[in-house]
């Protein structure tokens, strides 16, 4: 049987990808950010999964306003980095796991979550920046990745409660998969940030730290928080944090082991937050 071994949570700020791609990681501005992920890469070296289910949002790249799925699972063989307007990131293609993706879709849709199945799409910084932060700059990504896109661009976005329950459904699906795969579920985006309007630049450290605390210790309670609290307290783009509840919902009911926790302000317009939680055996 497959099992979820751990979950990873991280911001997916595009400027982090640009800093990596342009060789700026050692600059004083960026050093604290990449320093915070050094331990993550060390941890990953001894905790490499077979598959990552990577929960992220597309930023008007794969999905224009022609079609806006709330939840979309990538069932393709491979996914290419997209050209977001600055040219595609020079990172490896993403190799999917169509068999497990099909299994998850089959199970989760029957648990009342209406997933859109995507066989062909390109992936943007929301997916590739977390891979770069956790794996560095290899010639090929060291494991399979199932892209799981959530609409958090067009309101209303799914509620925290729905995301939490979706994580539960994904956990159940993975536990029912026959092959003994080790799977990690990642939740990405956030933390507090606002990219638009005169309120752009909003950062709320207290909110972010409390969110990290509750994500570890009281995720089901945290999942009850309404949208308006995210938007008011963490900025219009801080709503991305609901995606972290999908990854957390995929974890065991037993308290997790906190393998790493990191927080830093700023990276460009955004607060960087990061957690690694391991399931206790």
């Amino acid at each position, binding site marked *: 049987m497959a099992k979820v071994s751990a979950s990873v949570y991280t911001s997916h700020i595009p400027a982090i990808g640009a800093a990596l791609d342009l060789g700026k990681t050692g600059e004083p501005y960026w050093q604290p950010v990449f320093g915070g992920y050094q331990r993550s890469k060390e941890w990953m070296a001894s905790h490499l999964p077979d598959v990552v289910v990577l929960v992220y949002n597309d*930023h008007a*790249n794969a999905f224009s306003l022609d079609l806006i799925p709330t939840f979309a699972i990538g069932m393709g063989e491979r996914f290419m980095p997209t050209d977001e307007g*600055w040219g595609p990131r020079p990172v490896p293609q993403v190799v999917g796991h169509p068999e497990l993706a099909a299994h998850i879709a089959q199970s989760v849709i029957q648990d009342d979550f209406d997933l859109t199945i995507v066989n062909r799409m390109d992936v943007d910084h929301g997916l590739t920046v977390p891979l770069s932060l956790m794996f560095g700059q290899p010639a090929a990504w060291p494991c399979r990745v199932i892209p799981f896109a959530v609409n958090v661009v*067009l*309101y209303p976005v799914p509620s925290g409660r729905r995301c939490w329950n979706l994580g539960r459904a994904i956990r159940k699906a993975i536990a029912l998969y026959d092959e003994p795969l080790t799977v990690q579920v990642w939740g990405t985006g956030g933390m507090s940030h606002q*990219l638009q309007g*005169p309120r*752009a630049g909003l950062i709320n450290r207290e909110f972010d730290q409390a969110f990290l605390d509750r994500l570890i210790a009281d995720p089901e309670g945290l999942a009850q928080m309404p949208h308006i609290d995210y938007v008011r307290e963490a900025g219009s783009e801080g709503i991305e944090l609901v995606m972290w509840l999908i990854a957390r919902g995929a974890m065991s009911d037993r308290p997790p082991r906190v393998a790493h926790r990191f927080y830093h*302000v700023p990276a460009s317009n955004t607060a960087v937050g990061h957690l690694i939680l391991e399931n206790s055996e």
Partner: protein
Amino acid sequence: MALDKPYKDIPGTTIFDAEQSRLGYHLNQFCTSLMKPENRMRFKADERRYLDEWPMSEEQKQAVLARDLNRCIELGGNIYFLAKLGATDGRSFQYMAASMTGMTQEQYAQMMLAGGRPPQGNRTVGERRKGESGG
């Protein structure tokens, strides 16, 4: 009966909801078209002519020509779509964000380095007014 939209009282913020996306459909699809290098070239060569190929309102076209991102958002634009316009101009997300705040690039970057814009006084329109009258 009108739907409850509690986010309407957040200062300096336009939530891109279904209604805004309806207003901004063509504006945002114009932005999406700029993901293709050949379209970026055509747009740069004659912005007005390229815009006239899109069934956008005159107000939307003027806002794009002026690179007035706040106005674009008011007219249904969304920042992730508008980012394609910024990319066409060679601008970063931070440049675009700063341009909407009335601050210079330098002032905005300094604010971020100092911990960002605080939530205090920025949660609701009423809170801001109270903050101002309280001095």
